[in-house]
């Protein structure tokens, strides 16, 4: 079809084709249902966002602070190196900490704690999606090509774990 066909006023009066419904049905039949695991991943990520901001507010500090996922968005298109480094570790439930060596500003203050908490939550999500056992070892490094705020979502984490530098 040429561009003229689209812009011509006469062409707008094309009669309704009787086989339109059949074609529409074929198009509708192309749609596959979302994968079963997508719901769990999406809702886990949503709860991460909702939970993160709730925790911040409950501390009463920086109420307008952007969520941790927003912080990660700031590192968009930057290759970050994740390191499990016990030598800077503070006690946590998992006894390990994540360090974003590519973005020093993210290593300060409670954001480190937030990120660490998220790591734990991500691992819980992984456990629920039967992707465990996943074990961070001290000194392990993982290359992350951050393309969006949700780079570290549970569904993506395994491939980074499978791809240590």
């Amino acid at each position: 079809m040429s561009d003229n066909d689209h812009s011509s006023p006469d062409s707008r009066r094309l009669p309704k084709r009787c086989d339109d419904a059949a074609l529409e049905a074929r198009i509708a039949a192309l749609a596959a249902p979302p994968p079963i695991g997508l719901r769990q991943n999406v809702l886990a990520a949503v709860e991460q966002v909702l939970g993160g901001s709730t925790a911040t507010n409950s501390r009463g500090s920086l109420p307008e602070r952007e969520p941790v996922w927003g912080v990660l968005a700031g590192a968009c298109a930057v290759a970050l190196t994740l390191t499990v480094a016990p030598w800077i570790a503070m006690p946590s439930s998992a006894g390990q900490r994540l360090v974003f060596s590519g973005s020093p500003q993210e290593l300060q203050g409670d954001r480190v704690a937030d990120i660490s908490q998220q790591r734990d939550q991500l691992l819980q999500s992984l456990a629920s999606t039967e992707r465990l056992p996943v074990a961070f070892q001290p000194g392990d490094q993982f290359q992350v090509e951050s393309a969006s705020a949700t780079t570290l979502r549970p569904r993506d984490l395994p491939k980074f774990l499978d791809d240590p530098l």
Partner: protein
Amino acid sequence: MATLTQALAAGDPEAFAAVYDRFAARLCAVATTMTSSATEAEDIVHDLFVDLATHRQRFARVTDLDAYLFTALRNAVSRHWRRRSIHRKAIDRMQREHSREATYTDQPPPDEALAAALAALKATQREVLTLKIDGGLTFAEIARVTNTRPNTAASRYRYALAQLRRLLTRTQKQQHLREKTHVPQ
């Protein structure tokens, strides 16, 4: 509806789950058609919900949830296209094929000719087709989502169907010609 949007604005996880259950299939279908990639569509829908949760206070002003979600999806697809590199695209296509084989083995084989014809449509035509058929939106809603007039949306829809039919006919003729050419002697 007002109660749901209020719950979303308040950050109620169950409200987001309800929205997922109600809209995810349609959002995924539209995103799949718009990107021609099931894998990319899943990423987009995933990111969309994260964005919705991040900016959940905006739900307080939403009066038409369908239009809001599909507008947000459209914007997410646009952002995704901007980010996507040629290399990434090639990889995702491969993953898509692999994913379809692995995930939907119990499904009938996809209508490859139609999928190819859809992919060959202009983006605006493909968009209005999938918003109408997969998204279930009215032309008035499509007009709001795509920032056009309802008549424009309806016209694009008609042209898209006509063009799609033309492409399918061409493909059928080519296939018929190939079959005739390769008839064993």
